[in-house]
């Protein structure tokens, strides 16, 4: 008896059920998530500013060329490996910053009396694009195909982002604090 005709329907239904389970499972979010998200972004902005010089130094071509010339092939290999490790970690950290910003955008939308579909859709597509690109960059770094010094351009932007948004958040935080610290309305609501 040929059961293959059942397979696509069973797979599709199974996939939808798995998606439902993933979406419906409890996340145990604490109240005040808005402030957490905003604080995380401010914190990361400060972190980037603090460590930007070291990261720039670690990834600079001149530094690498000097060490290679002075220390020989063995040291050059060690340095290259270390630089790659730093770059991979840095791309992961950038992704974390990007998502903190995305989360902040979602929180603002969630607590706003009206939202604009186009803006929400734009954030969704930007998130998907960034996730794909950062993974590709990370994969290229791991495979040794990426030019390390160029990462500094991205790090500059994130540093700037963290610092500039901090001022806006300070003002927003004061206005939002009273509005956000209410119990989660959908828990136990019906």
């Amino acid at each position, binding site marked *: 008896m040929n059961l293959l005709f059942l397979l696509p329907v069973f797979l599709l239904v199974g996939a*939808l059920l798995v998606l439902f389970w993933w979406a419906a499972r409890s996340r145990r979010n604490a109240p005040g998530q808005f402030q957490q998200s905003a604080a995380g972004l401010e914190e990361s902005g400060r972190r980037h500013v603090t460590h930007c010089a070291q990261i720039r130094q670690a990834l600079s071509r001149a530094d690498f060329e000097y060490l290679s010339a002075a220390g020989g092939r063995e040291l050059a290999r060690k340095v290259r490996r270390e630089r790659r490790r730093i770059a991979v970690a840095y791309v992961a950290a950038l992704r974390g910053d990007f998502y903190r910003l995305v989360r902040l955008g979602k929180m603002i939308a969630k607590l706003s009396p*009206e*939202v604009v579909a186009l803006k929400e859709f734009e954030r969704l597509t930007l998130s998907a694009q*960034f996730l794909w690109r950062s993974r590709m960059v990370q994969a290229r770094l791991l495979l040794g195909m990426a030019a390390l010094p160029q990462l500094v351009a991205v790090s500059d932007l994130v540093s700037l982002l963290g610092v500039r948004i901090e001022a806006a958040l300070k003002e927003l935080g004061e206005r939002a604090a009273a*509005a956000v610290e209410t119990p989660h309305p*959908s828990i*136990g*609501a019906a």
Partner: protein
Amino acid sequence: MVGIARFELVLWGLSLLFQVTLVTYLFATRKWRHYPGLSFYLLVNVLQSVFLYYCYARWGFLSIPAKRAAWASQIPVLGMRAWAVLDLSRVLLKPYSGIWGLAWRILALLGSALVLGSLLTAGRGWQQIVPNLNVSLEWTTVCMIVALFVFARNYEIEPSLAIRWLALGFLLYSSFAILNHTVLRHWLARYWVAWNVFGTLSFLASVCLWWSAAFQPVEELQRASMLPRDIYHVLTPEINLRLRSLNERLLRLFNAEAKQP
């Protein structure tokens, strides 16, 4: 009644008993005001069962008029189910007025597209249209519920236990109906007796899940405290602009790497 196996009759009676007690409970405790969609859906289901019992007793389970009456009585039931699913969306998202405004448009668009697709692919002739439309609407129910929960997750909205049980009940019944129909279409002659039994069993399981949902404590639906209106309009374009710049920088980095030998 001629043509119905005893086991199937017992299951049917059990299902009816569960539904009647649940509907009575919902109306007696005034919880129907919290779940109007579910309450009226179950009420219409009970009325359909009474109507079908009369039809089967009068014309026989296997007769053509009884079969037609059974499929025709599915129309109000499906309509009420659509309302119950929409009501579920309302209960979950209504406290967030901005998100709800966006969600109902997306869900309405998705639902309309799926229903239109169902109508276009339902086929011709009474024998084909109603069962095909029925299963397509089951697909619509499953897709709508999954889309609703994915949407809620995207905005970090935590559904209450009662909402989860309710959704799971609809999802279980509709998923099972889809699988049941797929098998039935290929083994029509051998499978149709089992089809009825499995359908009733899955519905019984769904009623049990709705029981669990109805027994959860309920609180009045309250609107979340909103941020001032201008914050979204000022900060969201700013955040999106920064996300876009970050993305463009990363793209340039990626393209520059790609050009390297």
